[in-house]
Every structure is written in structure tokens, then in C-alpha cells.
């Protein structure tokens, strides 16, 4: 009987030298280079419907439930803590050699454009205090937090330098007001973070509202102010939280400053009281927090000491106010008035205070920067804000408010006039600049390259970062949208295998 094996067939199994084809190797997977698990959209969990089984008996056969030993569920609040936890370091990631830290020199160094600059370790506590980091930002995949020095960051660094200025620089003490927009994942929040980091390096006082939504979502207690018309509301706990943040972050600066003004509402203030102590009064007693905040603001914007306080007066530093998620302040809040009508966000004095800074007038007397960022992922739709930002953009392009091309709200659209008023045209006065609109786009190719090289140097991206590859990723990320680049960079595709190293 003949053998089932055919030797000629077997001989074909011998490995033959395969010529490298000119075409790139294309695997059977269709149109993508990602792992199969990414191909299928994640199925919703908890679908109780089990697939019907046919050709089986319909009699009830109930399996005995196995009592599996389950781990104890996390304690109350632990899940949320896990969710909100911010991890800033990953010991498994490689340390990037030659990474520079953010400093007064590096933040204006155009040669460093496109490279990732590490945040100085001592500053991390301050940044944590002002809640600059957000849980889903992917700080946890690198050895230490760092941000890319893109063009916008460099420009901002220059602004910081000018405003801080030494001596009698012409732009010292200027006020820059900006609304930051941009598509989703374009790095608006990180831009704010960079601003805070720069402010800390320049020893500014930093006020932040990390999430504007919290103030209007009805999470904080609120009380009406007696005799205000229309009724306005203060949020003592929110104010206390703000004071805590500010003191934690700016302790070094504030402890060097002493009270210099009369504060009739607050008792027990001496000229020797530092501003830290003043703020402490506010967050130790929530009822006092709003007057204390007002007092603190008055102190920080003071240009000269009041009568009787001249002794210890020191010039106040410039201030940075950073707000994230501006659109939430342009709608009616979840709070209700006594007659159960919704309270407009602008009726909350906390919100009103920070929005009034945008108006021309005495906002920041000692100079500084107002950065109000919008969001694309957590964003209530506000027609009035859209129109207002369009108007702002038009003004920036030189279209006068009276021209027919100037965008106007549609007739009968009921655009919120209070919102439109916030962004109405203003004229620059003195050191105060007019409101600007800054739109963040994608990174340039060079910046993209630097950013992806950082991934590779951290041992996350096992690719040859050459021009072609970078260009490809740049296109896939919609023209260098940094959030998308991060997604591309952190996806580990290559199976770990020993790599021959040329010694």
C-alpha cells in the first residue's frame, strides 16, 4: 500500500528563501493595524438576555449556583477614590534621558519647541493642590509628568515673562484675557496646566476653578444674599474649597504678604496677619468664606497699602485665574430660587465674580492672566456662547461689530443676553488687554515627532520614529490632535521580543 505521504509534497514544506517583496507586508486583517480586540466595539456589559438555544429540551434544568468566594467589595467611597485617583508616575516606564525641567529659561526657549519638558517635582504638590491634573490624562504611563512645549505654550511663556517683567518693562503688569477653545483632545486643559506651572515658576498667585460644572450642578450648598436684586447666591463651601486650593498652592507667596487694607466685615485682622492666615479664616469657618475671599481678592489686587498698613506692604504679585469648562457658566444652573425657578449661573456671586473679571475695568490691578477654557467633551449646548465666541473670533479678524458680516444671533432664537453681554466688544484700557480667543489646533509635524519620540524614549512605543511614520500618525490623529496622538502612542502593538542590540 502506498504511503499517504507524498515526498514531493513534503519537500515543498521546506523553508525557502523568501524574497523581500517591494510591497509592504499585508496581513489578512482588513484595513487596520490594530489588535483584534480594538476592532470590535466594546460590548455592553450586563445584557441579561442569554442566547436562545434551539434543538434542546425546554425543560428547566437549573444548575446549582456555585458559591464563589468573592473578594470583598471596596469600601464606601473607595471606588470613587480609585476613579479620581491621579497617578503621576509609572516606575516601569523608562526614564527619559536629557529631559529638561520647566524653568524660567526653558519656558521661553524656542529651541526646545517640540520637546517634552518635565514638571519640576516640587511643583507637583502645588499642581495637585490646584487640581491641575485630571484623572484620564494619561500621566500614569510615564516615569514622571511632563508636557510638550508647543507653539502656544512658548507664546504663553513669553507672555508670562513679559508680564512678570523686571524693572520697568513696558508690558509689566499687563492683563491678558483669553478664552481657550479647540477641538476635543486638543490640549486645552493641559494648556491651563502649563499656565499654572509657569505661574508657579514665576511666583504668581494662582486661582483655579478646575471644573466649572461643580459650581452650577447643585453640589454645593448655597444661600441667598439678603437684599440683593435680583437675588444672588453665595456658595460658602465652594468658596472654602477655592480658598483651600489657593492657600495650599500659593502658601509660599501668600505667607510673605500681609494684610494691607481695611476689611470692615472681618474682625481680628492685624497688619501683621499674613494672607495665609486670612484665607485660613475663610476655610476654617465656611460662613466667613465669602467675605474672606473678597478680602483676599482685595488684598491681592491692591496696588498700594491702605492708611495705617504701610509698614509691611509689599507689592502684590501678578495673578493667574484659570477656569475649565466655561460653557457651564453660561446656562441656568441646577439651583432653584425660593419660588422654584432655576437660578441663572450668573446669579451665583462666585461665578459672577470670575466672569466680571472679563469685563474691562479694575479686574487684576497687578497684572496677570485670565484663561477661561471651554470643553468639548463635557459641554452643555449654549447657543448664546457659540454666537458670542463667533463674534469674538470675528472681532479678532478685524470685523467691526457694526458690519453686516459680524455674526448676530438669529432672530427669535432667544439667545441669552446676559451671556452675550459678558463677551460684548470692549476697548483696551491701560494695561488691560481686550478679551481674546485662542483656538488650539493640532501639533505641527515637528512637534508631533518630539511628542512621539518621548513615547519611544519612555519605552512605550517600539517603533522607528522616522519622518514617514510620524507623518502617518499625524494624519491619523486628524492633523496632530494631541489627545489622538497620545492614543496612538500608548497602544502597545508589538509583542515583546528580545531585540538584538548592536554594541
Amino acid at each position, binding site marked *: 500500500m502506498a504511503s499517504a505521504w507524498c515526498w514531493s509534497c513534503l519537500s515543498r514544506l521546506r523553508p525557502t528563501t523568501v524574497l523581500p517583496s517591494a*510591497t509592504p507586508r*499585508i496581513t489578512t486583517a482588513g*484595513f*487596520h*493595524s490594530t489588535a483584534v480586540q480594538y476592532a470590535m466595539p466594546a460590548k455592553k456589559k450586563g445584557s441579561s438576555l442569554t442566547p436562545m438555544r434551539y434543538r434542546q429540551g*425546554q425543560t428547566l434544568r437549573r444548575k446549582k449556583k456555585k458559591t464563589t468566594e468573592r473578594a470583598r467589595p471596596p469600601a464606601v467611597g473607595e471606588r470613587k477614590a480609585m476613579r479620581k485617583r491621579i497617578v503621576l508616575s509609572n516606575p516601569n516606564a523608562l526614564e527619559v534621558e536629557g529631559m529638561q525641567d520647566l524653568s524660567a529659561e526653558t519656558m521661553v526657549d524656542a529651541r526646545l519647541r517640540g520637546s517634552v519638558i518635565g514638571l519640576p517635582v516640587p511643583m507637583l504638590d502645588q499642581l495637585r493642590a490646584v487640581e491641575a491634573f485630571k484623572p484620564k490624562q494619561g500621566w500614569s504611563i510615564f516615569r514622571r509628568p511632563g508636557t510638550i512645549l508647543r507653539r502656544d505654550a512658548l507664546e504663553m511663556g513669553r507672555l508670562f515673562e513679559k508680564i512678570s517683567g523686571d524693572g520697568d518693562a513696558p508690558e509689566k503688569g499687563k492683563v491678558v484675557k483669553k478664552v481657550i477653545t479647540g*477641538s476635543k483632545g486638543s490640549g486645552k486643559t493641559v494648556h491651563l496646566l502649563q499656565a499654572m506651572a509657569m505661574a508657579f515658576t514665576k511666583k504668581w498667585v494662582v486661582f483655579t476653578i478646575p471644573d466649572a460644572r461643580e459650581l452650577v450642578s447643585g453640589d454645593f450648598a448655597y444661600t441667598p444674599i439678603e437684599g440683593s436684586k435680583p437675588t444672588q447666591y453665595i456658595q460658602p463651601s465652594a468658596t472654602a474649597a477655592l480658598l483651600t486650593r489657593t492657600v495650599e498652592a500659593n502658601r509660599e507667596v501668600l505667607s510673605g504678604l500681609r494684610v494691607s487694607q481695611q476689611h470692615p466685615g472681618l474682625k481680628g485682622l492685624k497688619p501683621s496677619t499674613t494672607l495665609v492666615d486670612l484665607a485660613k479664616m475663610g476655610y476654617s469657618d465656611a460662613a466667613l468664606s465669602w467675605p474672606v475671599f473678597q478680602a483676599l481678592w482685595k488684598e491681592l489686587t491692591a496696588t498700594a497699602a491702605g492708611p495705617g498698613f504701610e509698614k509691611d506692604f509689599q507689592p502684590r504679585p501678578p495673578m493667574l485665574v484659570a477656569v475649565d469648562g466655561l460653557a457651564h457658566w453660561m446656562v441656568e444652573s441646577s439651583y432653584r430660587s425660593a419660588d422654584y425657578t432655576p437660578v441663572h449661573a450668573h446669579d451665583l456671586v462666585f461665578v459672577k465674580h470670575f466672569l466680571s473679571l472679563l469685563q474691562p475695568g479694575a479686574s487684576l490691578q497687578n497684572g496677570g492672566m485670565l484663561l477661561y477654557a471651554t470643553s468639548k467633551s463635557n459641554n452643555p449646548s449654549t447657543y448664546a456662547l457659540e454666537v458670542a465666541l463667533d463674534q469674538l473670533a470675528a472681532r479678532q479678524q478685524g470685523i467691526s461689530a457694526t458690519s453686516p458680516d459680524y455674526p448676530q444671533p438669529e432672530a427669535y432664537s432667544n439667545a441669552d443676553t446676559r451671556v452675550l453681554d459678558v463677551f460684548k466688544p470692549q476697548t483696551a484700557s491701560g494695561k488691560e488687554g481686550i478679551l481674546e480667543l485662542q483656538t488650539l489646533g493640532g501639533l505641527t509635524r515637528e512637534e508631533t515627532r518630539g511628542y512621539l519620540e518621548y513615547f519611544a524614549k519612555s519605552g512605550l512605543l517600539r517603533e522607528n520614529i522616522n519622518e514617514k511614520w510620524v507623518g*502617518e500618525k499625524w494624519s491619523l490623529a486628524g492633523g496632530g490632535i494631541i489627545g489622538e496622538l497620545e492614543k496612538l502612542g500608548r497602544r502597545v502593538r508589538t509583542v515583546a521580543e528580545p531585540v538584538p542590540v548592536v554594541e
Partner: protein
Amino acid sequence: MGKKKGRRKGEEGQKLKFYALKRGIGSSDEMIIRKSHDTWKNSNSTPTPENVPQTGPLPITSPMARYTPNGIASAMQSLRLQSSLPCRSRIPALRQAVRNYATETQPEQPVISEQQQAPPPPPQEVTAAPKINFDLFRLQPARIIPASPSYFSGNPRFIDHVLRLEALQLKHARLPTVTPGEAPRMAWFKLAQFRDFVGEAVPVKKYKSLVKILQRLNRIQPALVPKEVRTALEEFLRPGNPYALKNAPRVVDDNGLARAKGKRKESTAVVRLVEGEGEVLVNGKSIVEVFQRVHDRESALWALRCTQRLDKYNVWATVRGGGVTGQAEAITLAIGRALLIHEPGLKPILRKSGVISVDARRVERKKPGHVKARKMPTWVKR
């Protein structure tokens, strides 16, 4: 002979041996067989070369039926039918032969050869018939002769065509040919059209064999095709040559745009591809906004990616209908086609990577009686 007395007529036929006299009358090719009672011989009478000049099995019209029992039976039948008027044999011995029935007794008669013929009858006053003028026959045949030799076959006109084409094929068999792919595309008659054309019910298989001959003739090198072949082939072409209409080749327009369409599932995409720096806009928006998943973005741009052209072109896509995956893969196809307009040399790569292959799958329709397209309702006892 006596032994066979009790035989029935039908049985007899099986046992009989048939001899036919074959005589050449006209040309040597032509064969006319006279079948008569005279030729019938009893099985017992052994034929000798003397009395039967040439023997052989009875030729039957159908060559196929020659050796089969059925063929013999049918030959019998035809003999019985045609032998109402027995022809006279020139062989006097045979002339006397009478069919022997089982009930009859036949006088014993010795078979005598032609040479030992009895003395001729006394001469009478007989004038010889004039010599037959065969030319007259040819001019005006005595009976109607069909124009086609295949007249008595089932479909003579078809067979005529086949014979003619076969003759052509044989005649020009030596001419050089091209490979089937290079031969000019010809739209031959479809079967129904061909049946109309010849007016006969041509079987599928036979028509296929005809088409095979046509294709063989069509493969003769186009420059050397003889005129007769060309005219013969043209007879079998469908009216209105469907391959004559060629789509205008797509080209890059004045603005450097290559425009192409693609479809997948319910989506339709139109892509304008222009040289650029890798910017992609879908419906006027950034690709990131339209396709949130990296997977979809990659599949949409796969044509450019697998050819490493992602940083060489700008893509302007308009896509309508369907879902996210469908839209992404419709764009894939469209970009692949548009890229072919810019660089036709990329075709093998694109074909291999599957971006210019149309995926014609669509959602299967739901059927009545089914829960979905194929799913049947649960079987319920009672």
C-alpha cells in the same frame, strides 16, 4: 429448415442473419443498399462467396445503431416497413427466394451461382432502353433532394453552422493565436438569441461546443484574421456590441483632483484626492470628529497607508448613509480608486491589500416566517 417450423415470426428475426448486396452504382463513395425479401437468408443456409458477392452486416442509417441489439431491432423494423415493394434482384437465384413462413413449406431449391445460370430465355423482340442520361438526373433529380446534407438530423441549420466553422477552424488551424486574455472581447449570442437566430431548439451543450469553436477562431492573431473568418464570426455576435462602449478613462482634472466613488453596506463615499500633505477632511470636518475610533480612521485611510502615501495627498471626502464602519470602508474604496487615477502603477499593491475590491455584501433581508433573515421561531411542543 424443418427445425424452425414452429418459430414465431418475431423470434425469427433475432436469429436471422442479414446479408446485403452491395453494389456500386454511382460514385464509389455512394452506397445504395437494396433491401428486399430476396436478401433474406435462412440462418441455416451458409453463405458462400459464390452466391453472395459481398457480405456484411446490414448497414443502418445510424452508425451508432450498428452493433447494438437495439440497432438490429430497429433495422428489422425499418426493413419491414420499407419492404412493401420488393425490389427485383438481378440475381435470378435470389429472385425466386420467397420469404419462408413457419407455416409454409418451402420447396428445396439449390442455390446456384451466377455462372451456373440456367440457359437464357428465348430471345424476344426487345428493344434496349436508351442510355440513361445521368446529367439530366443531376439537373432535375427524380425526387426532391434536401439542400443540406444534414436535413434529416434534428437541427440541420445548427449542424451546418458547426460544420462550416469546423471547416474554417481546420483550414486556419496553423495561424498564430493569442492568449484568451488578449483576444478581442466578443459578445456571442446568448443561447436564447442563438435559438432565435437558427430557429431550432439547440441544446445547451451543443451550443457550448459551437461557442468553443468561435472562441478558438477568435483567438487567431487579430492582425492575421482572414476575412472569411471575420465575417463568419460577425454572424454570431449579439446585436449592439456591449464591449464596444468603453467608459471614459478617469483622469486627474485641472485642479489636480482625482474623484472617485466607493460604496460599502449602506454608505456611499465620494473622495477628491489631491496632492498635499496628509490633511484629511470628511464632510468638511476633521477625520477625528467623524471617526472617533482609531480603527475606523485607519481603515478609511488604509489605501494611502499601505502604499505609504499618507503624507503625499490631501483627502476631501463626502460620505452619506450607513453607519460608522460602512462609512469608513466606503471611504477606503473611494480613496483606493482615486489613488489609482493618480498612480495607476499602484494597482497590484492596492489589489493585494484589498482596498479596491468591492465588498458587495449587504444585509440579508428578513423573510416571512423567520424571526430574522434565517432565524426561525423557537420550536414549541404543542
